């Protein structure tokens, strides 16, 4: 049972702690700075925070007994002289970290290993708790990587990284846009996964191509790894064969569009979503903030509203801003309009922690 949340926002990192059945903000770090993501390493309890200082670039900090320390940031290798590689807009592609969009701890058998996904599409691996990083060349040099495109940003980016609980050599990543990729040898080689997903923002000949898919978020049930859930630009997809093939889930009230998805750690058929009107608007349907939950593998969905604003709510929940704890009972999410809600009963009811935070980019237990 986790009693602590780390909430990354446009103007700082907020620690939220449960005490006497109340969740309160107890600490603000990096106040005024853009904190985009955190990772709590379950193997040693260390926290990592990604910051974006705009003019001054992206940085990574790590918690110590004395507070935060700045550590190495993933750096792209020198772009070869004369190499002409343009982005989808025809501009020269800058081989430089534009954003840290995913952080994940390696397996229990490889202490110190961290994975980091970035814009413009580089995946990095550290073997020393983030003291240094190496780009995964096999993926960066993969000819198909150049077919990745921007989704919500101008540049493609890796936003989801999943390390297989059974074998830490197996790692899935998801790209917006570029679909789902799997390595089974710690990153030495990669294969595309994700047949069955459908993209309707590309021409018909690309609609079903796994590389054209705008996956917003990919999760895997830790205790039943064959089950994967995707919140996609086009809707909700579910897999029962660890991402080889997906089935589209349609007609979920009030919408199948959204950014995050979380799955119960031991119940593969139970997952939660934060629905919105599709991409042309990106606001809750009817101004009512709701969470949808399925307990039967997407055969049916419930719309959860208790404790959430049901009038003139325009909260958007970003892909990293929805979290579940290791018990599967506690959930939390934050919004672009500074709302933060926690549930202790799997989403049946929610309590608001704050409605006045800066825009929330990420929420994590631990």
């Amino acid at each position, binding site marked *: 049972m986790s009693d602590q949340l780390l909430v990354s926002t446009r103007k700082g990192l907020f620690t939220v702690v449960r005490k006497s059945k109340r969740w309160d903000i107890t600490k603000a770090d990096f106040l005024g700075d853009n904190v985009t993501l955190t990772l709590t390493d379950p193997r040693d309890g260390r926290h990592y925070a990604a910051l974006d*200082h705009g*003019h*001054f*670039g992206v*940085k990574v900090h790590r918690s110590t007994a004395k507070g935060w320390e700045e550590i190495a940031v993933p750096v792209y290798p*020198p772009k070869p002289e004369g190499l002409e590689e343009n982005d989808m807009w025809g501009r020269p592609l800058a*081989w*430089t970290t534009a954003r840290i969009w995913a952080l994940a701890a390696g397996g229990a058998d490889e202490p110190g290993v961290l994975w980091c996904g970035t814009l413009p599409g580089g995946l990095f691996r550290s073997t020393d708790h983030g003291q240094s990083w190496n780009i995964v060349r096999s993926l960066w040099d993969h000819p198909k990587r150049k077919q990745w495109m921007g989704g919500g940003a101008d540049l493609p980016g890796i936003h989801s990284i999943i390390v297989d609980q059974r074998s830490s050599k197996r790692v899935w990543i998801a790209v917006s846009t570029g679909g789902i990729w799997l390595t089974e040898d710690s990153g030495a080689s990669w294969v595309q996964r994700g047949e069955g997903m459908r993209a309707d923002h590309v021409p018909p000949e690309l609609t079903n191509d796994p590389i054209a898919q705008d996956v917003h978020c990919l999760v895997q049930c830790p205790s039943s790894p064959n089950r994967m859930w995707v919140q996609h630009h086009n809707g909700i997809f579910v897999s029962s064969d660890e991402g080889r093939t997906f089935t589209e889930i349609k007609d979920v009230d009030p919408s199948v569009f959204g950014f995050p998805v979380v799955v119960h750690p031991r119940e593969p058929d139970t997952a939660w979503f934060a629905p919105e009107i599709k991409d042309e608007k990106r606001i809750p349907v009817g101004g009512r903030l709701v969470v949808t939950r399925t307990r039967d593998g997407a055969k049916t969905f419930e719309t959860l509203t208790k404790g959430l604003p049901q009038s003139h709510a325009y909260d958007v929940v970003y892909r990293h801003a929805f979290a579940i704890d290791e018990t599967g009972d506690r959930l939390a999410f934050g919004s672009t309009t500074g709302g933060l809600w926690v549930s202790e009963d799997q989403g049946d009811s929610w309590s608001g922690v704050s409605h006045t935070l800066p825009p929330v980019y990420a929420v994590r237990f631990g």
Partner: protein
Amino acid sequence: MPKVVFTPNLQRHVECPETTAAGGTVGEVLANVFASNPQARSYVLDDQGALRRHMSIFVDGQLIHDRARLSDAVGETSSVYVFQALSGG
């Protein structure tokens, strides 16, 4: 030796006091500054060693031309100002 001044806004993240450093180009001068203050480098230059997109450098009041290789000439008595390109509004 050329004088080097960094934007006050950078001081909040990493200490960059006014200093002097040898060099005949912007790149050479900055390399010498960062040799003794390595943490500051990534705040000013990107992964490829080019000037970050929203940073600017002035040599004796003139905006530099070569943002990628930093080859603009610096004189023995020049002032090099490393600033933000946009006020931020």
